[in-house]
């Protein structure tokens, strides 16, 4: 196994205006690559004063990214990918919630925007690679094939949201932050040392296109209020809701059910049925699932044949679970070694072999331990 190749490349660095992508771009430039910075304008802003203008929602972020690029000493551009982002990420996000699933828009953005729309344009313009501030590693094997691995610092690892990348995309990806044991404080210190003003900028955690963090409000605005029933496992109505799309499997807070459960224990969302606009709740134990099926599998390399044993991650920042997985007629069938609680359709399952990402797929259905099949 060899390290990421270091011959000079023409690199397009995606710069969000945050500290990670700024340091990533600076490291790429320092490594001798010919780096150009680009900030992606992803949201149309109708409030802009300029007549007919369309800016990104975060003029400040674009300014911060430009300042960082100037300090690093690289050219900088703003590319308007708002149309693609709306179609491929935002509309999909809303449609997934509407269908009772829980999407991960960051993953979708990496698959469809950063390593598709952006990468394709970069390659066409003569760039060799796209560089981002993700914490993950690309390792080039002696035979030239590329592998995606978890970041050296497991606590910062973001390989989960990159699990959708195939080997062609990986061949053109550069993650300068992934291969060093670096805490966030050290990255900030490095930014400070490099004179990057974003060193003290707070981390962004929220979904970038929902600036106020109010996902429910965002969905309600697009999908409208749709009152429906909250039922228990027996189907008895125990409350009402204002839109089934507002819930996530495993959710406990915000159910607003008047009457307590018979056993007095907290109730969780077990199922969301958009067809009859019904949300089913029940005890925590009923959230246990022992398997799942997942669709749209993508592999970082050749698709595995036959059943295999892997560790799996089922949500961003989630822990690892031991699984057996097999590809059957294009669908990934997964069995957990131990039951897992609260698996939400729409999320991705990413399969790992040690630290190596094997592939990913979108969770479609789950099978319940409660059904008695162990």
């Amino acid at each position, binding site marked *: 196994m060899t390290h990421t190749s270091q011959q000079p490349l023409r690199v397009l660095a995606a710069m969000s205006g945050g500290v990670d992508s700024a340091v990533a771009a600076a490291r790429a430039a320092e490594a001798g690559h010919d780096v150009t910075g680009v900030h992606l304008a992803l949201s149309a802003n109708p409030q802009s004063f*300029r007549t*007919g203008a369309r*800016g990104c929602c975060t003029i400040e972020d674009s300014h911060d990214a430009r300042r960082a690029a100037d300090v690093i000493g690289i*050219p900088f*551009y703003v590319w*308007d990918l708002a149309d693609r982002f709306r179609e491929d990420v935002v509309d999909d996000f809303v449609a997934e919630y509407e269908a009772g699933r829980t999407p991960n828009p960051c993953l979708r953005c990496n698959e469809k925007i950063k390593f598709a*729309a952006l990468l394709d344009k970069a390659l*066409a313009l003569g760039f060799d690679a796209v560089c981002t501030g993700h914490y993950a590693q690309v390792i080039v094997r002696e035979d030239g094939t590329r592998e995606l691995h978890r970041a050296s610092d497991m606590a910062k690892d973001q390989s989960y949201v990159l699990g959708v990348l195939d080997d062609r995309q990986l061949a053109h990806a550069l993650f300068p932050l992934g291969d060093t044991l670096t805490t966030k404080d050290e990255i900030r210190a490095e930014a400070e040392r490099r004179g990057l003003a974003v060193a003290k900028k707070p981390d962004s955690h929220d979904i970038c296109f929902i600036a106020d963090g109010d996902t429910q409000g965002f969905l309600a605005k697009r999908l409208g209020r749709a009152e429906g029933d909250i039922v228990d496992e027996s189907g008895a109505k125990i409350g009402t809701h204002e839109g089934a799309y507002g819930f996530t499997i495993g959710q406990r807070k915000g159910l607003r059910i008047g009457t307590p459960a018979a056993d007095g224990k907290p109730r969780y969302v077990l199922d969301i049925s958009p067809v009859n606009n019904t949300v089913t709740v029940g005890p925590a134990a009923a959230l246990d699932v022992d398997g799942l099926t997942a669709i749209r599998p993508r592999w970082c390399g050749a698709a595995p044949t036959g059943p295999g044993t892997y560790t799996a991650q089922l949500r961003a920042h989630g822990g690892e679970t031991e699984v057996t997985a097999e590809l059957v007629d294009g669908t990934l069938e997964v069995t957990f070694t131990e039951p897992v609680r609260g698996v939400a359709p729409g999320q991705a399952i990413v399969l790992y072999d040690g630290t190596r990402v094997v592939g990913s797929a979108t969770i479609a259905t789950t099978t319940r331990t409660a059904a008695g099949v162990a």
Partner: protein
Amino acid sequence: MAYLDHAATTPMLPEAVEALTAQLGVTGNASSLHAAGRRARRTVEEARETLAESLGARPSEVVFTSGGTEADNLAVKGLYWARRDADPARVRVLASPVEHHAVLDAVHWLGEHEGAEIEYLPVDPYGRVHPDALREAIARDPGSVALATVMWANNEIGTITPVRELADVASEFGVPLHADAVQAFGQVPVSFTDSGLAAMTVSGHKVGGPYGIGALLLGREYSPVPVLHGGGQERHVRSGTLDVPAVASFAVAGRIAAEQQQWFAHEIGALRDSLIEEVRRVVPDAILGGDPVDRLPANAHFTFPGCEGDSLLLLLDAQGIECSTGSACTAGVAQPSHVLLATGTDPDLARGTLRFSLGHTSTQADVEAVTKAIGPVVERARAAGLS
């Protein structure tokens, strides 16, 4: 390096640098009565006279501002307020749709906040307002027009407007006409008196002077309501202590620009002609924007079908060729140019534009650099397509 963005800003003339630096160490507020003040005032008034002479105006018609943007705002808002105050029926503002944002956004603001009724004058495919179009718009209800504003020469596509004929129409109805002459000054003959305009904007850094200084040429019968209130400098229409070094330097640059205008039109115009010829030879489907003949001598504007202007810019920048897609955009997000849209250009087509603007330091080597680069650059940008 090939710098072909002189319409954004052009290098300062050595004489202007000298005039500026000579004044930087001199103390004196031009409004003060003591010797230092008198010295500063003398410098300012001499500069005013020089600039007036360069622009075919009387010294009293020169109102110094912080630049083109402020002069445009003062003309548009100030004349609107003054004319409406004199007669509340005057609320119509007639504007060409190809204006610089300093005019366009000021006009738009009047519509949003001051009850103005904005009418955009029709333009031909070269972006030119015809006198008949202005006549039609005013004649519909002459008593309701506050002002009209046009552009002497367009900053993006270079088309020259028949300012004198438009001013004749406006004055027939007693309507003040303002023209933004920021790009015209130094490139075509500009005489404020002969133009018949009520107000005219010029800027320092576009003619080899410093940033942050400009002027509104203002007929003596007009008293626009000030945008900046204060000490009453500049005929009480533009308060603020004058920037003596910038004023002196601007006057020097303006004088040289006016003196060299014919040389510029001939020599730089010839360079520009060869640039257009070469680009069209290498990229036969490139579309020349603006009037092919009656245009700024230093402007070459092209549309490259199937290309994103930003891609062209990035690729040329990587080869040391500095130009622009149109006018600079602060937010950095490329928009199809409002100028091209106003001329009826298809929005997708309007995304693939490049403006090469030459200036007093341009050379044959600059043209050759573009000739060498443009073919492969367009090919590559076309492959990248429209995102």
